């Protein structure tokens, strides 16, 4: 009896346990399904928001690049506008400076014998520096450079550049050379050399020398400028090389408050006229060695004799002849005659100098003090330039 009760109890417990297990399993299954369902749902939501995010990000990117483009365009437009305004002003200044230089030239010749000449020379120096700055600004703004219509020896081109910087007497040109630059290259090379000389002068002590030499390397002519300055570090050198190649053209607004035109200007004209400039060398004084490398298209071997040389050589020839002539005293000493040759070769106020090839006329051997005096007077006058300030005078100088 007692055992039956126990059995029944156990059966009941078992049944209950089985029921509970079944119920729990069912519940568990339901929960799992629900979980999966919600997970899938969440995943889907994540996916959509992800794509939303992606879209917005792309949009943002688009907006940003659009904005950048607009900004760049605006900057370029501003740059162009600034350049256009400056270009006009700089060209005006440039032509005014050139006009003034020509004017000063003739004034210097007019008052050549007067004490005011020394002041005129100083004014001319200041003017030459201004003309260089005006040319630099004009080049930066894309205006054309001034042009010379006559070839000139590279020595004279360097001297012309020398006159365009403040402390020009620190520059010494160590060699004279007959190699000539073609007319089209004269003005740009003079400006480039002037900027390099200015750089050399500003980055060295105020009394340190600056030496210019010329060198021919294969078919190139090099103008070498050595200074005794502080030299450049690697970063400066790299920057300078970029600017001088003309690949990098800085904006006007990037030039700073005290604009450094030098290298950008050189880079622009070097590219435009086809020569190269390098400043990475070290000079023999430990400063910078700048080299302007001119390809053979820009120079010739021809000499360009100065126009005034003709009368000089004809005098010497004539004098040599008169000394070996027959004018001798009875004791065999040469007679001191009136100067013949200078008379013949001193050009009159309007006469052009004789052609260099024309030999002096052989019959000019007699004494003629009248002509001598006349020649002396003409020489004096042309020396003083009182009345011979003809346009030819300033033109052929």
């Amino acid at each position, binding site marked *: 009896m007692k055992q039956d009760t126990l059995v029944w109890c156990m059966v009941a417990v078992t049944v209950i346990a089985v029921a509970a297990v079944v119920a729990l399993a069912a519940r568990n299954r339901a929960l799992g399904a629900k979980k999966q369902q919600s997970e899938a749902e969440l995943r889907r939501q994540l996916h959509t928001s992800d794509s939303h995010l992606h879209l917005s990000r792309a949009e943002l990117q688009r907006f940003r690049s659009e904005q950048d483009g607009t900004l760049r365009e605006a900057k370029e437009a501003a740059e162009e506008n600034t350049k256009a305004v400056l270009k006009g002003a700089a060209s005006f200044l440039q032509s005014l400076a050139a006009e003034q230089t020509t004017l000063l030239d003739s004034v210097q010749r007019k008052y050549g014998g007067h004490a005011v000449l020394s002041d005129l020379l100083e004014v001319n120096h200041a003017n030459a520096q201004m003309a260089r700055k005006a040319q630099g600004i004009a080049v930066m703004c894309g205006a054309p450079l001034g042009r010379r219509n006559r070839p000139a020896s590279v020595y004279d081109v360097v001297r012309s550049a020398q*006159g365009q910087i403040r402390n020009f007497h620190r520059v010494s040109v160590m060699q004279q050379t007959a190699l000539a630059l073609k007319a089209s290259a004269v003005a740009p090379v003079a400006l480039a050399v002037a900027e390099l000389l200015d750089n050399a002068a500003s980055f060295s002590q105020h009394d340190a020398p600056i030496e210019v030499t010329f060198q021919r390397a294969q078919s190139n002519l090099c103008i070498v400028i050595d200074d005794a300055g502080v030299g450049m570090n690697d970063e400066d050198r790299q920057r300078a090389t970029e600017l001088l190649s003309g690949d990098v053209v800085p904006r006007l607004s990037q030039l700073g408050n005290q604009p450094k035109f030098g290298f950008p200007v050189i880079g622009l004209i070097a590219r435009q006229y086809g020569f190269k400039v390098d400043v990475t060398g070290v000079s023999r004084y430990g400063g910078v060695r700048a080299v302007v490398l001119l390809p053979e298209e820009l120079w010739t071997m021809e000499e360009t004799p100065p126009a005034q040389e003709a009368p*000089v050589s004809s005098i010497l020839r004539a004098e040599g002849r008169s000394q070996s002539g027959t004018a001798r005293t009875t004791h065999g000493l040469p007679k001191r005659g009136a100067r013949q040759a200078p008379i013949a070769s001193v050009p009159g106020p309007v006469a052009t100098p004789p052609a260099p090839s024309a030999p002096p006329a052989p019959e000019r051997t007699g004494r003629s003090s009248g002509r001598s005096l006349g020649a002396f007077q003409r020489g004096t006058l042309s020396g003083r330039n009182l009345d011979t300030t003809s346009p030819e005078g300033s033109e052929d100088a």
Partner: protein
Amino acid sequence: MPDEPEQELELTSSLVPLFVITNGRALPPDHEYEHTTLVMAAQDAAATARTLSPEAGQVMALVTEGFLSVAEVAGHTHLPLGIVRILLAQLEEDSLILVRRPIPRAERVDRELVSAVLEGLKNRFGA
């Protein structure tokens, strides 16, 4: 500005400015190297003359053969007289040339002084 800036500016001034030719040297005093002062190359000048600037060399070439007046040198070189005088001063400093200065002009007697003396004499001796 007219709108034709593309036209290239033609530079007509002389390429080498005069102050570079003189290397910034000042003018000599007025009484030095007058028009009629005579100059001639020194005996041993030929060797050093090669290192001169072309303009100084031109002056040297003119005066190698004999004395020439400053005015004539200026006339032949087509340089302003003042520039020639500066070059000559430099050349004389380097003792490359001999300079023969003109005889100084006799000074004019002060007219007032003479008349005052005359006046005095008249007063003293009665004319």
